[in-house]
């Protein structure tokens, strides 16, 4: 199959964007996405807000939202700018952050439960549905843009790179790829967002990028967007004069970002308004949050500004009589943002754990500790743990770098809107230097605040087709385990620890497979068997077939595996079939698990189920 174009899709938690590169060209262009901007109003914007609005049947006249294509499966749901803005006023009908729901281990991503806690009568949506809707909208909008341009292109001409957070485990990755297929994109290639940001940086820096990094460097890709923070480390080494890049560690899924900052500022401003005897309602608080976000951007951009006026419009028609005003001063800004989210904490200062209330309501697992510095400290500490666990990774990092209690980055590549603010970038660099005994940490020049992930994905996609350019070695970002029930006599008050078998090692490369020898399992035909499934992002040394004595203590449980053995002709029903576990990471980056009959080539696919409690 000859691909003529590489399409990069950044399916973001709060916004999505796409970029296109012609394989024979030099350029990578952002393709603006057509969407509903208001009743009877459509237009193009560089980003598509990841928001679905489910309107009430009587809310808008029929045909109010005609898109230039036929909407297939999304029913009457509206996607994009209008959905987000209007939905903020009718939160019961708005779904946002579907991507974080997709990776939530406690909720079935195919269960139609969104909008969460909503009482609407209409059909609700699953996290998977939402991802599929966004991708469908993106595909239609892309095809529409190509028709308008007069570009002759069919989907088979296209290689699609779809980015996912580095913190996604393989279950969330597989679901995203499946959503893309259901949306009509066919088979897509998955790419971790921080790696896409890194590729975007190399594309922008041109040949210069090699001058900015050197062997021995540990590059932190620090991505803080609207709703999530995502960290990765890339180690630079040299192999026969050629730079070798390897992603050595990925962070956890942290629901903390720029939106939290705007909200925190809005609370501070509301307190000030109330102290002045002015009050604002729920809906005006939304406007205040919006205004606070704008003031934040303006004041961080123009550092000479001592304060910035904030005006919250009335809800009624009397704008003159009802507008409430105050101002944001620099001290408050710095107190709330820099000291609140990027405090100068120590490297040993880790995030607070969630308080365990007796009855915990399931929802999105928002980070209970808002201090990003502490999350970063935890990530760097765990990264060292991960590197120490394997011979291969240890060989990439100097003994000196491994002698500290954490893995200290030597350079940082920023990504995400939050880092548009130079004072925040400076604070983060200061913080890293302070942890590393005052050794300065370089910022890789050429930070692109917007749309870097989509551009980087498209750019890398072109390199993947032509075989030119660098490639960061990545492979599986974590190792995976199957729980083995220990057969022991029951003893009251004693729960035997659950042992786990490593089935996928960290770093397992795309297009490879492993078979676990010597650990045959007996499966009974005509029945379905379930296994508990675990992962870890800090156990780089575990080899396939290795046994972890206490899974519940050392690993993170992410799913339930189910395998259904249909009755087989030559095996009598009820008789156990000896099988071996066969793990495959496809060329496209999907993880598949199979149970392979030891005595024949027959194999059965294992399905991932969500663990529910």
């Amino acid at each position, binding site marked *: 199959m000859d691909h003529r174009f590489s399409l990069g899709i950044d399916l973001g938690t709060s916004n999505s964007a796409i970029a296109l590169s012609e394989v024979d060209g030099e350029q990578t262009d952002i393709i603006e996405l057509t969407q509903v*901007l*208001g*009743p*009877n*109003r*459509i*237009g*193009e914007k560089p980003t598509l807000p990841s928001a679905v609005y489910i309107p009430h049947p009587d809310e808008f*006249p029929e*045909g*109010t*939202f*005609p*898109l*230039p*294509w*036929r909407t297939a499966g999304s029913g009457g749901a509206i996607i994009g700018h209008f959905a987000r803005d209007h939905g903020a006023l009718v939160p019961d009908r708005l779904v946002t952050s579907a991507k974080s729901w997709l990776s939530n281990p406690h909720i079935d991503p195919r269960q139609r439960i969104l909008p969460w806690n909503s009482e609407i009568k209409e059909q609700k949506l699953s996290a998977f549905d939402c991802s599929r809707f966004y991708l469908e909208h993106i595909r239609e909008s892309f095809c*529409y843009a190509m*028709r*308008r341009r007069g570009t002759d292109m069919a989907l088979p001409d296209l290689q699609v790179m779809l980015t996912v957070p580095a913190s996604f485990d393989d279950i969330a990755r597989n679901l995203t790829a499946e959503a893309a297929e259901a949306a009509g994109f066919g088979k897509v290639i998955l790419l971790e967002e921080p790696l896409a940001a890194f590729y975007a940086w190399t594309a922008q820096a041109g040949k210069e990028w090699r001058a900015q990094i050197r062997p021995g460097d540990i590059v932190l890709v620090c991505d803080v967007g609207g709703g999530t923070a995502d960290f990765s480390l890339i180690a630079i080494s040299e192999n026969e004069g050629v730079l070798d890049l390897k992603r050595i560690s990925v962070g956890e899924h942290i629901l903390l970002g720029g939106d939290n900052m705007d909200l925190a500022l809005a609370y501070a401003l509301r307190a000030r308004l109330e102290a002045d005897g002015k009050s604002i309602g729920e*809906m005006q608080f939304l406007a205040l949050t919006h205004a606070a976000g*704008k003031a934040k951007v303006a004041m961080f951009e123009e550092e000479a500004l001592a304060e910035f*006026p904030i*005006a919250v*419009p009335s*809800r009624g*028609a*009397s*704008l*003159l*009589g009802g*507008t*409430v*005003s105050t101002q944001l001063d620099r001290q408050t800004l710095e107190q709330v943002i820099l000291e609140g989210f990027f405090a100068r904490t120590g490297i040993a200062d880790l995030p607070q754990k969630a308080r365990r209330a007796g009855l915990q309501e399931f929802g999105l697992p928002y980070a209970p500790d808002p201090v990003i510095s502490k999350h970063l400290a935890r990530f760097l500490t765990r990264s060292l743990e991960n590197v120490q666990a394997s011979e291969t990774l240890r060989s990439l990092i100097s003994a000196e770098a491994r002698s500290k209690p954490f893995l200290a980055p030597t350079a940082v590549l920023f990504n995400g809107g939050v880092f548009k603010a130079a004072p925040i970038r400076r604070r983060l660099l200061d913080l890293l230097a302070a942890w590393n005994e005052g050794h300065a940490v370089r910022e890789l020049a050429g930070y692109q605040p917007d749309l870097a992930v989509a551009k980087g994905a498209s750019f890398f996609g072109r390199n993947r087709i032509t075989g030119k350019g660098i490639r960061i070695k990545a492979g599986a970002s974590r190792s995976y385990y199957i729980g083995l029930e220990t057969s022991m006599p029951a003893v009251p008050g004693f729960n035997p620890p659950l042992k786990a078998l490593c089935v996928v090692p960290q770093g397992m490369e795309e297009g490879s497979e492993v078979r676990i020898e010597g650990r045959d399992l007996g499966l009974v035909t005509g029945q379905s068997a379930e296994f508990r499934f675990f992962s870890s992002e800090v156990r780089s040394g575990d080899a396939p077939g290795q046994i972890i004595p206490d899974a519940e203590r050392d690993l993170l449980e992410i799913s339930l595996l189910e395998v259904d053995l249909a009755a087989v002709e030559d095996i009598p029903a009820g008789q156990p079939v000896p099988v071996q576990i066969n793990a495959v990471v496809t060329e496209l980056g999907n993880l598949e698990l199979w149970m392979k009959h030891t005595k024949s080539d027959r194999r059965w696919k294992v399905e991932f189920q969500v663990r529910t409690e």
Partner: protein
Amino acid sequence: MKAMRKLTVTLASILVALAGLALAPEAALTPYADVAHAVLLKAIAAAAFLLLLAIIADRPKAEPARTAAEAVNLAAPVPTGNQADAEVVNFLAILQEKGRLVDFLMDDITAYSDAQVGAAGRVLHEGCKAVLLEHFGIRPMREEGEGSKVTIPPGYAPDDYRLVGKISGEPPFTGTLVHHGWRAEWVKLPRLIGISAGRPPAIAPAEVELG
């Protein structure tokens, strides 16, 4: 269509410029600032409204559909008769939604203090400016500073200049730049589709909170 858009641009630019002026006197604490301010604001309201009426009256009566290619691709056929009205009202609706323009102008401004007008003016300025920057590439007609000597070359576009004072002889003309003018280098308006025939769209829907 082009002509109408241009007028709309002019209207919007003037309104925003005037709104900007409305904010300026707050800083200048002269004894007559209050009086001057109130007069100025009345003038803004009147001028803006007259302009608006002029534009609506002046619109082309028969409006061709948007480019044929687009129309073909749209799911619903576009009614052409009231499309021109609808487009103007729709743009007004955007200015109202983002910058509360209609609220600002339709209110009785005499009843409010300068501080209140200033606060509302900020909402108006921020919102309407964002709309302008999003939908139009706005640049000064002349890049020179106001008050400087400028030359208007032979073959200039007469509708890009308003010559005042003594006009005689052949271009090039030289004179003092009084106002640098504005132009829209590009226009990217949202497309209005599927509107109901017979009446223009709402400028702002009545908002009712349920629950």
